[in-house]
Each structure stands twice: as C-alpha cells, then as structure tokens.
C-alpha cells in the first residue's frame, strides 16, 4: 500500500495499517468456475467468428468468380459482334484487331481478294475428323483467315501455330488482309505455318500503333 504522506499523524498510520490489513484479508479472487465458463465462451465465440469469416470469404470468392465470368462472357460477346470491330477507339495505345468474319477454308478457293471480304456472320466450325482420323486444314476455320499460299490438301497435323509481332507492311506482303490506315503499326498475329515455313493462314490478335 502507498505510504501515507510525511507529516502524518498517529491516526494516519493506524488507517494505513488497517487498510493493509483489509487488503491482506481480501486476498481471494473470482471463483474458478468463472474462468471455465469464460474459456468455453472464448472458444465458442471464436469458432462462430471463424465460421462467419469462412462464409464471408466463400461468398466473396463466389461473387468475384461470377463477376469475372460475366465480364468474360460480355467481352467475348462484344468481340464476336461484327459492328464492334469497326468502332475501336483510335486514341487507345493498343488497338485490338477483332476477328474478321472468317469463312471456312473450303469455301475460299478464289484467292486473297475474296478472303478479306467480310461476311455478315461469324462462323466458327470445329475441326472435323476424317474417316481416317486425320483432320484437314480445310476444316480448321476458327478465327484464321486463309493466305494466298493456302493449300487445301495440307493436313492440320502438318502445321503449327506461331505467334509473331511484325509490321503491318510485312503482313501485307504475305497477303494478310490489312486495312489501308494501319500505317507503321505493328501487329500481333498467330500464323498457321507448314513444316516448310509456308504461312497458310493468319489470325490477327492486336495492333500497336507506333507514333
């Protein structure tokens, strides 16, 4: 106990002594049952809290996944829309060349002039299997556009896809359908090439304008 200040009287000392006695007599504490009850409540409280947090996290994750999926679906829908391909913003640093409406390679035997002509509807046919189990390049039409070197007898198994970024002028040289205002831009594209390196088809992925 704190000593009573200097200059204290006899009664002060007696009071200090008496207070010490009371403090000593009151040495007991709370019954042990309270501790047990509180420990149980601590456990149940935190179990409940953990469950709530888990549910919250799961809910948030589900919402996030749903949002991403919805966003992806909307983006895909937008990219498949033929009108959106014509209205890409010019001020964007990277412009994406949306897939031109492609035709099946089997329908396109008439040369490069007809390849670049947009058809009103996008047609994405799955590569079909022949009876002998091989797939023909002619049947692989998804998003690729045939180039002048295209050969309908080449089998899909004999080709590979190579992703390159090259100037639009170089693309024009291989017969890729490029718009007139593409200028000095660089284009990211997937090429379907044969074993000998001949480019059979191209899929334009994006355009980066160079100032």
């Amino acid at each position, binding site marked *: 106990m704190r000593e009573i200040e200097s200059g204290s009287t006899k009664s002060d000392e007696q009071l200090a002594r008496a207070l010490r*006695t009371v403090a000593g007599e009151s040495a007991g504490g709370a019954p042990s049952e309270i501790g047990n009850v509180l420990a149980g409540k601590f456990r149940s409280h935190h179990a409940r809290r953990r469950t709530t947090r888990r549910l919250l996290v799961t809910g948030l994750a589900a919402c996030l996944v749903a949002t991403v999926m919805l966003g992806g679906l909307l983006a895909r829908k937008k990219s498949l829309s033929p009108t959106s391909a014509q209205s890409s913003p010019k001020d964007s640093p990277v412009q994406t060349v949306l897939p031109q409406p492609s035709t099946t390679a089997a329908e396109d035997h008439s040369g490069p002039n007809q390849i670049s002509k947009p058809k009103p509807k996008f047609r994405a046919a799955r590569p079909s299997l022949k009876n002998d189990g091989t797939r023909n390049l002619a049947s692989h039409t998804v998003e690729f556009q045939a180039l002048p070197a295209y050969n309908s007898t080449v089998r899909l198994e004999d080709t590979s896809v190579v992703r390159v970024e090259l100037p639009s002028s170089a693309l024009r040289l291989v017969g890729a359908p490029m718009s007139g205002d593409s200028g000095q831009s660089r284009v990211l594209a997937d090429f379907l090439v044969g074993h000998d390196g001949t480019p059979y088809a191209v899929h334009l992925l994006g355009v980066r304008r160079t100032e």
Partner: protein
Amino acid sequence: MAELSRDDQELVRQIVRGDEAAFRAIYVRYQDPIYRFALHMSGNGATAEEVTQEAFMLLITSPKSYQPEKGSVAGYLFGIARNLTRRSMLRGHLNVPIADDADEGDGLAFASDLDILEDMTRAETVEALRGAILTLPDLYREAVVLCDLEELSYAAAAEALQCSEGTVASRLHRARSLLKTKLLKTKILKTKLLKTN
C-alpha cells in the same frame, strides 16, 4: 511495469487472433484484482462475480475496443469493471446513501489527531474499515480501493478512473479523511455501547 504493459498488449493482440492461451494468461493475471475491486466497490460477492465475468466477456467479444495508445490493459479492465459495478449497483439499489458528509467535515480536525482504532481487535478493525469504505461516495471509494487496497499507482488509477493523477491524489486524501472520521465514530459508538452494558 512498462514491460508488463507491453506484454499485456501483445496478449490482447493474440486474443484478437483467437489465441485461448493468451486469454487465459490475461484472465489469470487480472481476475483477482478485478474481482476484489468489484467486491470492495459493491460489498456484494454476487455483483463482484458478475462484474468479473462481464468485464472479461467484453474482452472476448470486442478485444479491439482496447486501444493501446489510450493506456494499459489493467487500466482498461478496471475501467470496464468500474462502469459495470456502477451500473449493477444502480440496478440493484446497492448504493449506500451518504448522509454524513456535512457533520464529518467538522469531525475531520480532531479525527486526524486521535487514536481511531485503539482497543479494536483485528477482526473488528477489518469489519469497521470495510463498512466505512462502503459508505464512502463512489468517487472516493474508487480511489481508496484502487490505490490503497489494490495498490495501483496514481497513474494507473487515473487511467482506470479517467481523470488526472492530481484528481486521484485529491480524492484519496479526502477519502482517507472521511474514513478516519467514520472509524472514530465507530469507536465512540462502541465505547458508548460498552459503557451502557
């Protein structure tokens, strides 16, 4: 003291994360002082138990309400216990009315010089002092219980009582004066009773 306070703060951080051992450590450290504080303040064991349980329940359910920058864990717990005790006493009408402030002022002068506990046994002294403490006004009783019975520093008591250290010292001084007067009265009463018998 500062080290203990830092340790307490770390324990509270662990309680927030759900560490039961940390809660037990805090409970073992403070259950007795909190219980005794509530007991001395209310003079009622049941109230003291209830207050102790509720104070620690608050630490379980909202440990983030403790803000280290505002003071120690001890001060925080005593502050909770103080409020709970007051509320409980108001609810249960356990507050003993103080009706002797006026005449005690007159008695202070002589109470400081006289032998207030002479001829009283230890048990009588304890009983008389406990009774006297219970009749003190809340503000003075808190100061006596925290500083004299629980041996808290002025700083810690000030934290618990949410006032300055000077206020604690002043209340303590006043409380001791009142206690002396009350004890003297008890002694006089006892002497009269003995003479009558």
